[in-house]
């Protein structure tokens, strides 16, 4: 990695990263993006198991997806929570996820776009 030598470098890198992400989205192979909220409260309620389950099952079921670990969103009452973004759609956060629920999300939402119970709608504004 070459170091960033000026604020202009930083902006360029930022644009490159964003472009790379977009290219992935607009390419022939569109990917499902999943964020598993893995802060302390997520992990304490089983986020690690959900992460492994998702990675394993999505591979097994031939679904092209990117699964990443992030921090928590603050929905401690509903942990583990995951956010699923289908190509070209707005993200949805699902709460109270266990293996059964995760399986349901893959089969219903990811495969068929059918929403399931346990959705935590965006309840905040951000900057």
């Amino acid at each position, binding site marked *: *990695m070459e*170091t*960033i*030598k*000026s*604020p202009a*470098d*930083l*902006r360029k*890198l*930022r644009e490159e*990263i*964003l472009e790379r*992400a977009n290219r992935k989205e607009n390419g022939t192979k569109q990917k499902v993006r999943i*964020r598993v*909220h893995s*802060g*302390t*409260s997520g*992990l304490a309620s089983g986020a690690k198991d959900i992460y492994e389950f998702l990675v394993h099952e999505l591979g097994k079921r031939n679904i092209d997806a990117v699964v*990443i*670990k*992030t*921090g*928590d*969103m*603050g*929905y*401690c*009452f*509903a942990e583990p*929570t995951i*956010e699923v973004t*289908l190509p070209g759609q*707005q993200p949805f956060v699902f*709460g109270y996820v266990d293996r059964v629920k995760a399986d349901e999300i893959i089969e219903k939402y990811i495969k*068929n*776009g*059918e*929403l*399931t*119970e*346990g*959705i*935590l*709608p*965006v*309840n*905040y*504004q*951000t*900057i």
Partner: protein
Amino acid sequence: MSKYRMQILVCTGTSCSAKENEDLYDNLCLETEAFALENEIKVVKTGCFGLCGSGPIVKIMPGEVIYTNVTPGDAAEIVTEHVLKGRPVERLLCREEHTGRILATEQEVARHRKQLRIVLRNCGIIDPENIEEAIAAGAYEALGKVLTEMTPEGAIKIIRDSGLRGRGGGGFPTGLKWEIASRNKSDEKYVVCNADEGDPGAFMDRSVLEGDPHAVLEAMAVCGYCIGAATGLIYIRAEYPLAVARLITAINQAREYGLLGKNIMGTGFSFDIEIRYGAGAFVCGEETALIHSMEGLRGEPTVKPPFPAESGFRGKPSNVNNVETFACISPIILKGAEWFSNIGTEKSKGTKVFALAGKINNVGLIEVPMGTTLREVIYEIGGGIRNGKKFKAAQTGGPSGGCLTEKHLDIPIDFDNLLAAGSMMGSGGLIVMDEDDCMVSVAKFFLEFTVEESCGKCAPCRIGNKRLHELLEHITNGKGTMADLERLKNMSLVIKDTSLCGLGQSSPNPVLSTLENFRDEYEAHVMAKKCPAGQCRSLMEYFIIEANCVGCTACARVCPVNAISGERKEPHVINQEICIKCGACKEKCKFDAIIIQ
């Protein structure tokens, strides 16, 4: 893509009227079935949309149409008009409060949400172990701007003008703190990040460090440029292993990308950050104690002045800020002082993260603009009290704060209003208590914590708090007198006045504030020897109501100390001398014959 043509989302969160929402959901299902649409239209229950106060909410996808104040009776119209004919039901659309204008877009609706995320902007959004995600979200842009376009004085002025106040507890103006540190001349200076979050039930700093560590690193570098420091130190408790691991990863990645270290972004400014571990002592959240602990000394506070800005780490000028304060810096630099100072109340600007805990439905983190009321926080965002119980009090400021009661529900929360109400902002822990909580026990719990955490350096805190705790123990055991209540108050005031540091000066606050707001509960413990909430074991007595007891002997068999006696098919009695008040008999009784008095 979806096999459903349309999906209808109904909020069945606990916040709004839960019963109506269930009926609404049922009606929508019935209506879609009536038109044989169940294979085309799906009705889904969701959590809260954050537009509480205008609930129940219904959202229709695709199209993202949001309906507010929907009643169960509106289900038919939504299905016949919107679902069948594709015509939105205008009278139910989300409207602006005063003008009645229809809010058509998602962004317009969003502005009516109670929560505003500035500090938590990236938490749960980016991968904290991948700096590129942070950069894509705009990290280090503010640092670049400060280094190339601003003088240290100019940047400090922006922070000053923004009105940002320290989020760790005291609420000291951050810009002023930086200015003082920048004015003190020295060959070496330090930027210290206080991540020693110790209040019971508070975890906002942990979440920020776990979810968005670069926000803190960047802000520390900005601070370093402003005050003229080349080294940053993060004092974090070793009980936060995940936060520590992510911080280390973030620091290493930032160095690799040239965003920390020598000659940052080619500007000639050098700044690096190290981590110092704390052993989880509450007193080390106090800045002088924190600095001593970092130096390898005992974590004990010293008298201020000198303030750390004059003589801090290794005797050099040091600027100590809390994690949440640092997390506010980059947005202020990028969006300007005016933007930030337009959020919040007159003297408290911006937002505050609260950790909701206790008897509340939606336990977790929230971020709201200063000036939001306790009622909005508890009943709307927090989803109300668990099991539909009655709200009794909310403790803010942890063991250093006080309790807010029903009469405080509608005051706008900010630094000054909380102080006026006999509590304090503290770091943002908010513990909610319901009718089943005994306030004398609550005061005792917090005091137990401070007694445990007192460093023992000064007598008022070391001995005074111990004596206070003994008095409370006395009262909850039914041995207190009215004179004890006076003694509690006097001793509390003396401890407040004479303790060396913030820990001792604030430790009697829970006692004083519960005495003030719940004197009747103290009096009940002392005079009637009763605990109104039924929490203090020594003051409880289990009784068998003769008329209800059928003499099944179930209670006598379950009693671990054989305190219950009686003939089969005859009413039983509990021997109060032997009873240990474990409650096993009450649980076992099928005839509601056992009561607590």
